[in-house]
């Protein structure tokens, strides 16, 4: 099984990985405190936190009505406009209490600006889009993002935007090859250090999806 995956990865140039994920949020007024704390906790404490400003588009390909639509997440940096990133994530495993984080399989690929056209050509349709602005930190292989999500008032217009909530989304994630449960423990410990500022938790995605439909 594992060898198959590896062969496939070598052939296709795409490696299947697992993403371990914890999510939380911080109200805007306390965001600076959190950023300050993250600067202290994470690597490169002496340099300014790395900012990002992305436009995310979510495309899906619907097969027959019985089938689950295939969804991909496309991110386009508005700072470095030639940076496009396409990501596919599998369904999220919530797991039991012994598992510290959410786990989902994911595939990350760097793409070029023709991706939108390509996706449209093969039948993908834009589902929704938003703008994410925020900071990015890393500590070892852990990645922390603090992002403010904006609703786009006009489709495709990244300048005409309104904040979605009064909070910023905080995500702690690690992407590793299959089968490294130790990561969850590290992440839990890191999340502990951000309390009580942010409660990073396993957010049940299935429940969220049910609530949305």
């Amino acid at each position, binding site marked *: 099984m594992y060898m198959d995956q590896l062969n496939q990865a070598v052939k296709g140039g795409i490696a299947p990985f697992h993403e371990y994920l914890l999510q939380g949020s911080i109200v805007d007024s306390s965001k600076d405190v959190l950023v300050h704390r993250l600067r202290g906790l994470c690597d490169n404490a002496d340099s300014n936190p790395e900012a990002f400003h992305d436009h*995310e588009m979510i495309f899906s390909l619907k097969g027959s009505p019985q089938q689950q639509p295939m969804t991909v997440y496309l991110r386009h940096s508005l700072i470095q406009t030639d940076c496009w990133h396409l990501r596919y994530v599998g369904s999220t495993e919530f797991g039991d209490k012994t598992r510290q984080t959410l786990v989902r399989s994911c595939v990350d690929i760097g793409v070029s600006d023709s991706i939108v056209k390509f996706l449209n050509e093969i039948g993908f349709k834009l589902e929704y889009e938003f703008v994410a602005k925020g900071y990015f930190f890393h500590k070892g292989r852990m990645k922390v993002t603090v992002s403010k*999500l904006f609703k786009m008032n006009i489709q495709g217009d990244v300048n005409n935007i309104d904040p979605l909530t009064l909070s910023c989304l905080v995500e702690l994630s690690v992407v590793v090859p299959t089968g490294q449960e130790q990561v969850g423990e590290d992440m839990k410990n890191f999340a502990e250090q951000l309390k009580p500022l942010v409660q990073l938790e396993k957010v049940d995605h299935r429940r969220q999806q049910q609530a949305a439909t």
Partner: protein
Amino acid sequence: MQKEEKQLEMSLESMIQRVSELKNSIGALIFKLEHEYETLNWPSLLDNFALLSGQLNSLGRVLKSDKVPSLKNQLLLPLLLHPDPDENLRKLTEGRLLFFNHEIAPNYLRTKLEPEVEEKTQQLVTKAQQTTQEQTQKQLNNLNKVTSNLLDIINSTREEWDNESSQKSSQPQTSSLTDTNALVSATLTGKGLKSNRTRLPESPQAGMQQLQKIQNPSISKAPSSIKTQIKAASGGHPYQRT
């Protein structure tokens, strides 16, 4: 009479037990201080002190309890003094006392305080006796006043602190579960992002790509037809949803 003796014996036994416990823990603490001072940490030292204070307390309780006959009424008199080393005594005292002779006995059996201490106490007693009733009353009043003032200050400060801490504990609502859920479901399912969107074709960025795309094939055509074509095409721009 016999009953009292029995009681005394029992209370002595329990006293000895308490005292030896106390002695052991003091010994253990000293040992720790001498041998483990490099690794000894503050909490464990505090634990030791807490143990000592607990044992002292229980010893005090034994002494005060009703079952113990008043020890002040008991007489203790040395029956035999001996100048030679006493092996038995050495064992009993764990090597601290070798003789029970004329020099040591008075020291161990004394009931009076040390002379220096006694002198100091005497001084205080005479001083207290010299003050008149009136003066005493005055001083007492003064002391009461100062004490009550102090109590007031302490109480008010404590109230302030309590208020502050309660404010602090109520204040930091730095994250909200509803917002977390809203944000996560927005990224996952587009909840809150799909609705209320006007789809105006004039959107600069998306529109531009479309414009170029359309203009190319229509360059050769008449200007009027370009206009209509742009309008017609702008409805279906590349990110169109179904």
